[in-house]
């Protein structure tokens, strides 16, 4: 019975890859450590359409960054390995692609930016040289053309005096300017997909607003899709069309952004939303999710959120599969219906400590 169910579920979760710019099916990324196998990404499926923004949210260690790294096969091997699944970019399965062919896609069709731009920029070259290098490698342009393009890109990301700034070394730029330079490099080849891993987490809030603004504008101008990995639900609300909420290596909820905030259906999503202090909420204690994230080498056999969940029923000792709560709204919880109908976020008797 459960086998049939899982097959049905498996099939229904696979959309025709041709609809999607990127389609990830049942991705598994594991790490072999002394303590055992860390299932960082454990059966993640999602798709993203051209030009759209997908937000992946979750707390540290939930597997959101490793999902992104797996797409470009940037997971350090060993100890990491992609243990299963398929990742279709247009019609190509990136996981079976030879390294040389993958290098053609990286930087050209799919680009990535990281949280700390200083670690991804080379300190001994000027930012202009580094962007020009990317242009020359991917576009086979001559030096002068590449340099001109690099100045043009710096202007596109809103760096004032781009011609002078191109001659600066990374340490001469502020954090926000460095992140702009990284974005300029990432968009140098008009990628169809940009993966941004916590691009504004290290930045101050006024600078964050600038960078998000740049990303939004570039997306409009270039029509690229964006995967935005963040722990900040506010950023997701402002930027994303669709959202993936991850917990302990799995997707626990997946829907469009309006539905996610209007009708969060997984207890983890609901807890997460309630625990964020906002500028508009009223006083009182913040709701909390008690306990801590489970040890990734020893996930509970059943629902992975059960030890911290206030709604535990007997069925939670079984592994939970993603259920269709509505068209395009999937929830990994057997009790989602009772939870959204049941009103209060917290019951009086917390099951766990």
């Amino acid at each position, binding site marked *: 019975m459960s086998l049939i169910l899982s097959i049905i579920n498996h099939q229904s979760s696979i959309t025709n890859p041709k609809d999607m710019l990127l389609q990830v099916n049942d991705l598994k990324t594991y790490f072999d450590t002394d303590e055992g196998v860390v299932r960082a990404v454990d059966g993640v499926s999602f798709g993203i359409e051209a030009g759209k923004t997908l937000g992946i949210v979750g*707390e*540290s260690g939930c597997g959101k960054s490793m999902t992104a790294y797996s797409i470009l096969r940037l997971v350090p091997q060993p100890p990491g390995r992609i243990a299963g699944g398929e990742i279709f970019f247009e019609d190509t399965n990136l996981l079976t692609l030879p390294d040389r062919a993958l290098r053609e896609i990286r930087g050209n069709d799919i680009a990535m930016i990281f949280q700390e731009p200083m670690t991804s920029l080379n300190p001994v070259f000027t930012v202009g040289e580094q962007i020009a290098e990317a242009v020359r490698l991917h576009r086979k342009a001559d030096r002068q053309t590449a340099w001109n393009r690099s100045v043009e890109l710096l202007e596109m990301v809103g760096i*004032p005096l781009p011609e002078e700034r191109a001659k600066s070394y990374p340490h001469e730029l*502020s954090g*926000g*300017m460095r992140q702009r330079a990284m974005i300029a490099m990432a968009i140098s080849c008009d990628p169809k997909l940009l993966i941004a891993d916590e691009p504004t987490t290290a930045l*101050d*809030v*006024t*600078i*964050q*607003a*600038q960078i*998000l*603004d740049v990303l939004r504008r570039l997306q409009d101008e270039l029509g690229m899709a964006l995967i935005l990995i963040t*722990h*900040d*639900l*506010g*950023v*997701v*609300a*402002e930027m*994303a069309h669709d959202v993936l909420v991850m917990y302990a290596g799995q997707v626990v909820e997946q829907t469009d*952004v*309006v539905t*996610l*905030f*209007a009708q969060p259906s997984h207890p983890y999503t609901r*807890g*997460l*939303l309630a*625990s*964020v*202090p*906002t*500028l*508009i909420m009223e*006083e009182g*204690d*913040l*709701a*909390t*999710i*008690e306990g*801590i994230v489970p040890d990734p080498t020893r996930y509970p056999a059943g629902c992975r959120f059960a030890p911290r969940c206030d709604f535990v029923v007997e069925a939670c000792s079984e592994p939970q599969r993603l259920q269709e709560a509505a068209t395009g709204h999937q929830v990994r919880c057997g009790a989602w219906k009772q939870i959204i109908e049941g009103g209060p976020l917290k019951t009086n008797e917390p099951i766990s400590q």
Partner: protein
Amino acid sequence: MNQSSEQLLDVRDLKKHFSMGGGLFQRQKPVLKAVDGVSFTLQRGETLGLVGESGCGKTTAGRVILRLLEPTAGTATITTSLNGNGERHAYDIFSLKKEALRLLRRQMQIVFQDPYGSLNPRMTVGALLSEPLTVHNLTPKNELDDRVTELLTTVRLNPAHARRYPHEFSGGQRQRIGIARALAVQPELIIADEPVSALDVSIQAQIINLLKELQEKFQLSYLFISHDLRVVKHISDRVAVMYLGKIVETAEKHQLYRQPLHPYTEALLSAVPLPDPTLQRNRIILTGDVPNPTAPPPGCPFHPRCARAEARCKVDVPALEDKGDGHLVACHVV
């Protein structure tokens, strides 16, 4: 919450300047004015949120008040009891000498952002919590274990964990240990420097709730330093906004968040992402970066990024002025 209006801390015109390395042939070493004339008061039982972006001097201000750094100028007066007989007197923090300063440290404690960096990895939690008790002669040896158990229970940790080492705990649990250590000496003032910034949101909420609960239980006063306006709104009674070493606006929390007067506060608030995808906002996006603090602009430090700047903003430094109900703003235009 603040019931009594008794004053605990009065900081006036606090300055901390650092002289920078400078080159071999540079005649004059550049001076970084990290804190440049900051004044505020803190009532007993109150939480004052000190917000600002990186490099605005909020952390330095906290450290100078604790005398972890020596001030360049200014005064800080704390009204507290040094000898433990309950009689409170006003003391000038910056003129206290060795022994008196040691006694004062009992009354002012700090909670750091990175609890792991502030806990000695070779000491068990029990030893970490006993240390301040022994240093200040607060607890006889035979009662130490009981007191440690009490402290761990207060911050909702398992007393059996006293035998464990800091690395065996998660980030949130370590921050609880950091808080327990600050509480050990029963201080009146806790300066919390970005205490939840390194934590995940669900854990953040646990720590914020704990801090609020402890404040009520022990009548603590907090100087809560943070860059996160959402967290500050949640925990503070009053908020002071810093920019380039100066306080640009101070007000009661609701007042400040509902009606920010300084253009910088306004921009800062409008930059905070809100978890509501249906909201349409007119966002003020500031241009440019915070200026280099070794060469701050003349006049109002915010004028190069301010949309409302006038000619005099480039010349005169605006003073903090009361616009009513203790809402202080340093701006020529409002």
